[in-house]
């Protein structure tokens, strides 16, 4: 087994990073067009993970994650426009269902694809107003979460956590108290180091799960459960330490930290928390 990016994957990572930085302030529809032009929606699992990690880092406002990892694995194709999938057996908390052009439903009769307009999904009011989650009313729903959806949320959450850590590191180098940068205090350093370790742990497990999906390895079910659980563990550390180290600044609306904290937390709460996936590993 080889567990490092090859040259093309490294190149892709660089391109995604540059693109995401460059397009940060573009409106949503232009971002979406850029992603389509670059062929990111068609990326195979490991490459998709590379894209999603960076989109997580950027708190991407588009329905890319839902289209690539909620719709596509269910429908077996890409949607016309954007898409999402209902596979929880209930139709609660469906990512981007309020704005998807097509919605794939996992039903007792198999997968049914419907027009988003026809389903009239009801957007839920949530703590993070940039997050689109909606309730979908449809008959005969059954549960069966695609591995790709778990991997996608896991690796996006890793991206959010990386962003939180980067913001924290920049902040604690900059902010002075008692005449020194607060980053020179050991209590601060150790919190940052713990964030780093949690991120690295979650990152390798997320990429391993992408790799098992790419090669359709029999370990994929366990690998995605581990990835989702580790991402959940990671956001716990990064949310707590990240918020704490910002002091009152992190408590404000203006500070961009809040966006990433909320994304990271949502990444754990959607499709089962760390604790639930750990239990899945025990059976």
């Amino acid at each position: 087994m080889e567990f490092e990016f090859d040259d093309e994957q490294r190149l892709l990572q660089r391109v995604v990073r540059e693109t995401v930085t460059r397009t940060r302030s573009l409106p949503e529809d232009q971002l979406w067009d850029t992603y389509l032009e670059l062929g990111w929606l068609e990326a195979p699992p490991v490459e998709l993970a590379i894209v999603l990690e960076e989109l997580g880092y950027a708190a991407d406002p588009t329905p890319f994650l839902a289209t690539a990892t909620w719709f596509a694995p269910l429908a077996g194709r890409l949607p016309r426009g954007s898409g999402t999938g209902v596979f929880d057996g209930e139709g609660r908390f469906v990512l981007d269902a309020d704005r998807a052009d097509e919605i794939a439903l996992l039903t007792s009769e198999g997968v049914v694809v419907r027009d988003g307009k026809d389903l009239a999904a009801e957007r839920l009011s949530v703590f993070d107003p940039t997050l689109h989650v909606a309730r979908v009313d449809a008959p005969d729903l059954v549960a069966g979460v695609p591995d790709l959806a778990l991997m996608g949320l896991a690796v996006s959450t890793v991206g959010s956590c990386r962003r939180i850590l980067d913001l924290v590191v920049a902040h604690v180098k900059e902010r002075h108290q008692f005449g020194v940068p607060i980053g020179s205090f050991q209590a601060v350093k150790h919190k940052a180091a713990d964030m780093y370790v949690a991120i690295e742990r979650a990152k390798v497990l997320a990429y391993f799960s992408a790799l098992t999906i790419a090669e359709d390895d029999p370990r994929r079910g366990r690998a995605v459960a581990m990835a989702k659980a580790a991402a959940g563990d990671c956001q716990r550390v990064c949310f707590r330490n990240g918020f704490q180290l910002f002091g009152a600044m992190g408590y404000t609306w203006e500070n961009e930290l809040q966006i990433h904290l909320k994304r990271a937390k949502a990444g754990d709460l959607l499709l089962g928390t760390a604790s639930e996936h750990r239990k899945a590993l025990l059976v």
Partner: protein
Amino acid sequence: MRLAPDPEVEKFRADFSAFLDTHLPTPEEATVRSKSSADIPDWARRWQRTLFDEGWLLPAQPPEYGGRNATLPQVVAHLEELSRRRIYHSFNPQGLNIIAASLLTFGTEQQKRDWAIPLLRAEITASLGMSEPGAGSDLAGLRTRAVLDGDHFVVNGQKVWTSGAHDADVLLTFVRTDPDAPKHKGISVLLIPTASEGLVRRPFGSIAAPDDLDFNEVFFTDVRVPKENLVGPLNEGWRVANGSLGHERTLLWVHYAERMDGLIQDSPCDEEWYATLQMDVQALRLLGYRLLGADRNPVEISVLKLLGSEAAQSAELHALEHHGTEALLHPVQTGPYTHMNIEAFTASWFERYARSFGGTIAGGTSEIQRNIIAERILGLPR
């Protein structure tokens, strides 16, 4: 990234497996147990010698150093096979993994011949003399002095914690050779035979038992050490300590991950921590593969050490608590007895938990690893 096994590696694994099936000592041969980390019973010496002769001891090395020029993925397969069967390839692990490895990296040709090869062939054993009463985490504060006098160094001072020293033939000893230089710049490394005049070793018990003797105090009084026993350049001991040991350190942690599989097997249960343990082991393994693969910052070894040692400790604590009052019992066997293993790994749950602190204290504590990650990876001010 690729999961599929490489045929070259699988062939290598099969060859090693076949070798183990035919050459492994029998449980009857192996009744005499190792008493310390530098005590190799005769049967285990023969075993290590066989590994050396057949090129299975340090497979990445050339044949003259007990290897077969194996590739890194092959070396990983070698460790996986050993761990899967709970086999220790040397009962003087620091002698093989740290001291011989350092000599192969930093030693002169003569040192390799006179010291590294006998260590590899288990003709002699070695211990690591770094820590002192006043120099633990602050290793660079060490004060044991070595003064050049003609063609000898004269050594005075004291080491402590020196695992296995009372059974070792030689100590890789860190000494101060330039007291006026900044503290990292005046350190050198000497090979000091334990039979040297003026060298006194006093073993003392561990938390496990008063007669569990591995720790030592070592006192040096005017010990004369031939100049040619200097390892690496004079006053560059800090470099040896932090070893450009290449992949050796990463491999130690891959090995550690594989060994944690034993813990997974020994403590099956349906509590959440058991899933966490499996995740930690898998993450450690993947971090190791990743670090072996690419041109990554070698400081990342700190991530492996911190994650691995803390994960093991946390799992041992959960296993202990899982057994409730029963976990007070000692001695008891908590894993399968395998004669090629070191018993401490299957000792009572209480002992196993206590010993897990070796991981978070020795070789740079968890706190020191966090400092390193914060300062040298994240770039926070010192």
